[in-house]
Every structure is written in structure tokens, then in C-alpha cells.
């Protein structure tokens, strides 16, 4: 059973502790694909920016009576009175979250974690590379880049999805494709006849967009197998390791670096990540026990 909006304000009065969720109402539910929805949640922010987040950060979302999972914030960072999370239904908690409707209440702790290096990327070409639902954590970066287009060099989104039906934010991708001076390439694992775009691994798109490797910052998000192959392909094309950033995922529970569930060598993914500079974690990625 989900909490209703009427209980939300009472619960929020005690919400200053990072371990205590704020209970916030769902204001909109957007069906993205057959198993993925985006939930827009009212933050109660009055416009002072207190409820803001940095692109790349995540919240712990609590489905009342079911459990809590980390979910990246996938909306526009300039909008502070609402937050968007994109949830793929893969287990009991995400399934409960994906079933929430407008007016239902969700527990929110956060935002937590590090963020994409948008300030450092100013003046550089920027490659945003995503696979599968990994497009959600980098969507705030895309909003940011498109609003401050003049601050960056050439920009591109390279996105890999399993099939045409699994493409996230497809309408928005169409809009971005038509945006001048912004390159968007989508590739699929396999495609049916009507698809006229690329089919193959996302690294195959690197040769199809314009960027100067020596002056490029790359932000990569997706399954770890894809992160490893993409980082190597970027370095092969001349992008320095210290300008490649990846978003890591592990089993995050407390989100504050106490419980140790997401320990990754000397790091806690929840606190020191989820965004890491590639050269800081490159060696750890080859240790299979981690």
C-alpha cells in the first residue's frame, strides 16, 4: 500500500537527517518503454534552489512497505520544484516504484554522490556516451549542455540501446537530433526493417561524430562491460584517460558511506562516486572480486 499525499507534509518535517526519507508526491508518471517509467516528484522547493541537485547525483527512492533503491536523477537540473527519476522495472522495489501513480507518495533521501564535471568541461568538446538505461543519469548533462551551448566546443550524444522499443526518451532524442550544432547518434543491438540508423556496439559511433580527441571530455554511463570497452575505445581514439569520466554502480544501501555495501577498493560508490575519473578506477575495474 502506498502512502497518500496528505501524509507527506507531516513526514517531511523530520526530513533533515540523510537517513530519513522525505515523503514527496508523484506529480506525473511518463511511460518511457514497456518496462520503464519516469516519475516526476514535487520537491516542495519554493524557488530558492534548496532542492536542487548536480547532474550525475542520485536519490534513494523508497517504495512504502517494499524497500529502497538508488535511482539517478534524470530531469533538468535547472528545475528545482520537481525532480524526475527514470525507473526500469527489474525487481520488487523498482516494480513498485514503476507502478506509482500521480498523487501517490514516494520516500526520497538525497541527493547523494559526485557529479559530472560540467564546469571542468567548459571550452572542451564534450562526448556523452550512454547505453541502455544509462541514458537517464546523463540526461541532466544534456539539458545543461544545450542551455549553455556556447560554453562548450563540439558536443555529441552517442547512445546504444538493445532494440528500437528500448530507446529511452525517443521523442526528446528526435528534438535533440534537430538541434543545430548538437550531434546525436543512436545504435541498436539489433533492429527490425523500419530502422534506418546504426546497428552495432556504441563504440562504433565514435568514428561517426566530429570531435578533437585532444580537447575532449567524455562522460560515459551504462553497464560496466560497456564502460570498460568505451573507455578503451576513447583512449584509442586519443582522448586522455584523465578526461574520461564514468558512472559506476554497485549495491548501494545507506548512500552515506557507512554500511560498506558499495565499497569499491578504497572508494564507496555512493559517497565518492557514482561519477569517477576513469584513471582513478581503471585498475580496479580489472579486479573481478570487487
Amino acid at each position, binding site marked *: 500500500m502506498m502512502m497518500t499525499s496528505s501524509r507527506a507534509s507531516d513526514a517531511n518535517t523530520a526530513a533533515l537527517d540523510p537517513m530519513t526519507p522525505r515523503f514527496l508526491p508523484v506529480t506525473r508518471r511518463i511511460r518511457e518503454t514497456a518496462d520503464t517509467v519516469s516519475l516526476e516528484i514535487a520537491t516542495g522547493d519554493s524557488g530558492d534552489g534548496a532542492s536542487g541537485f548536480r547532474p550525475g547525483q542520485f536519490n534513494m527512492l523508497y517504495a512504502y512497505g517494499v524497500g529502497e533503491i538508488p535511482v539517478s536523477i534524470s530531469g533538468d537540473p535547472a528545475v528545482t520544484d520537481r525532480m524526475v527519476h527514470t525507473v*526500469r522495472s527489474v525487481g520488487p522495489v*523498482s516494480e513498485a516504484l514503476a507502478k506509482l501513480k500521480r498523487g501517490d507518495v514516494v520516500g526520497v533521501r538525497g541527493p547523494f554522490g559526485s557529479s559530472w564535471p560540467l564546469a571542468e568541461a567548459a571550452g572542451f568538446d564534450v562526448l556523452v556516451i550512454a547505453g*541502455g538505461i544509462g541514458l537517464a543519469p546523463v540526461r541532466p548533462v544534456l539539458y545543461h549542455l544545450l542551455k549553455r551551448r556556447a560554453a562548450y566546443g563540439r558536443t555529441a550524444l552517442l547512445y546504444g540501446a*538493445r532494440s528500437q522499443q528500448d530507446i529511452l526518451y525517443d521523442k526528446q532524442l528526435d528534438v535533440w537530433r534537430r538541434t543545430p550544432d548538437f550531434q546525436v547518434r543512436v545504435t541498436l543491438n539489433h533492429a527490425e526493417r523500419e530502422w534506418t540508423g546504426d*546497428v552495432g556496439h556504441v563504440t562504433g559511433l565514435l568514428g561517426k561524430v566530429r570531435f578533437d580527441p585532444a580537447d575532449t571530455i567524455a562522460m560515459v554511463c551504462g553497464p560496466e562491460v560497456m564502460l570498460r570497452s568505451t573507455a578503451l575505445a576513447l583512449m584509442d581514439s586519443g582522448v586522455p584517460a584523465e578526461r574520461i569520466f564514468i558512472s559506476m554502480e554497485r549495491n548501494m544501501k545507506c548512500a552515506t558511506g557507512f554500511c560498506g555495501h558499495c565499497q569499491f577498493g578504497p572508494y564507496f560508490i555512493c559517497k565518492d562516486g557514482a561519477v569517477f575519473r576513469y584513471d582513478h578506477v581503471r585498475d580496479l575495474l580489472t579486479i573481478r572480486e570487487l
Partner: protein
Amino acid sequence: MKGIEELLRQHPFVQGLEDDIVRMIAGCAKNVVFQVNQYVFREADAADNFYIIRHGTVALEMFVPGRGPFTFLTVKSGEILGADWLVPPYRCSFDARAVELTRAIAFDATCLRDKCETDHHIGYEMMKRFIPPLVRQLQTARFQSLEIYDDDKLQSE
């Protein structure tokens, strides 16, 4: 109209290749055009040709009964098409369909194999150019077979 040698020299596949070799392999080549949705070859056809794509896109497909054709790779301008001509029984193992108007250079496979067999230096230079795209395609196939985008560690629960 540009001669086949000149067209060949503009393609990344022959970059760095000695002039004599370009001249030699040009003798096996001809200019070809495929209209939208025209098949370059079909599964089980004799693999008589090897192609380098000048402009356009070709979808590599397998027909799945009850579901129709599925594209598992696209090859585009600057890339090569076809590997079955390299190994016996020289039979195409998939369909190749032009997704858009596609201009290519087609090599007669027997002619090219004969030149490689006769002069192993040519054969080695050719092999150095065939192997990298084939390895990349193998790597892509590996990722596809793993369905890596289904890895939902991104939402740990």
C-alpha cells in the same frame, strides 16, 4: 568519370597501400550502385564479391521465421562488406540490403584471391586490411550476444 583506380585511392581501405598493388587489385574491381532496399547479396548466395562502401549504408540481416528480417550490423561509407569470400565454401551467411542509395566498389572474389595467392605480399597487405574490421565485428557480436544493455546493475536491488 573517375576511373576505378582513382575511386579506390579515395577509400580508407587502400590508404597506405603501394601504388603497384592498388593498380593490381583495381583490375579485379568495378563500380556498383545499389538502390534503397536492393539486396547486395542474400544468404546462401555464392560469395563472389567483396565490397568497399564509398557512400551509403548497408544493413546486414538474418531472416527469423515468424519475426521477419533482423539487422545485426550496419556498414557505412568507408567500411567494407563481406567476409565469406575469404573462406571456403565461399557462401554468403547473411543478407545484405542497401538502406539508402549506396555506391560501392565490388571486387571479383576469385580474381582477388588469385592475386593474393600468386603474390603473398599483396595477400599480406590485403589481410592486414581485412582483419581489423573483422575483429571489430567479432567484438560487436560478442557484446550483442551478451545483451549488455539488459544489465540492470544500474538499479541495484
